[in-house]
């Protein structure tokens, strides 16, 4: 059961990572007309169309992570403490707190991406999107590394 939840947690994170990376690049480095490369296509998306999906995926990923958290707290964190791997625990603690701050950012993120896009909120829209992308990338990498050190479950 825990393994299944972890896989769904990871899948939601992957989808969200893709959506937020597309969206961030589309606002920070918008594609010019005429480009035909894969990277050009990656940036040439309508960022606003990702906003609702990102919110839903973020909440779903946090919910799944919350269900998994007690298993981590009992089995993984104490294992790291026994081995004095405090940096591994530290980066995971940071992940938990960064993700929480990101959760609180979602209402503002959704508001800034509401259609029609308000020009006076362009800077905030870019900054909040980049902040969320950073949080999700950090959480994804740390989650993957920590799972690789110990594995998961009892």
């Amino acid at each position: 059961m825990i393994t299944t939840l972890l896989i769904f947690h990871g899948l939601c994170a992957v989808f969200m990572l893709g959506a937020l990376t597309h969206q961030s690049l589309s606002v920070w480095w918008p594609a010019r007309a005429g480009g035909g490369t894969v990277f050009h296509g990656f940036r040439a998306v309508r960022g606003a169309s990702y906003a609702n999906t990102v919110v839903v995926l973020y909440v779903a990923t946090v919910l799944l992570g919350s269900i998994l958290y007690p298993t981590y707290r009992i089995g993984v964190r104490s294992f790291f403490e026994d081995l004095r791997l405090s940096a591994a625990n530290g980066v995971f603690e940071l992940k938990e707190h960064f993700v929480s701050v990101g959760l609180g950012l979602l209402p503002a993120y959704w508001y800034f991406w509401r259609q029609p896009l308000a020009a006076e909120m362009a800077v905030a829209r870019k900054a909040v999107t980049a902040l969320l992308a950073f949080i999700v990338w950090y959480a994804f990498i740390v989650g993957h590394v920590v799972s690789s050190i110990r594995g998961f479950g009892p």
Partner: protein
Amino acid sequence: MSIARVFPVFSVAFAVLYVLSMDNNWALFTYLARAGEFHPLVYAPPTPRAGPAMYWWGWLATSAIGAAIVAGIAAALPAGRAGGRWSSPAWPTLTWVVPLAVLMVLVFLLRGWFIRVA
């Protein structure tokens, strides 16, 4: 005016309240992971058998309720001078500056995991 205008206020308040809740342990409830028990506010398990106490969900609840109250107060303020203040150009900027600062504060608060703190 739409309630959504105070969403940035919620986000700023949530970030500030979260770091305060975490640093001061203002958990609305505690979960004992091994025993599977919820307890109101901050609860220290009497025996190690109950397993470690989890406060994270409690901090999230404290922050969410607190931020909802702050946003509710902002929404209830009449339009005009006070209402204008909540929807002033400063709020979109605060919405990313404050959470960014909170992330840095979190790194500072958790530095003990990475370096020796006197």
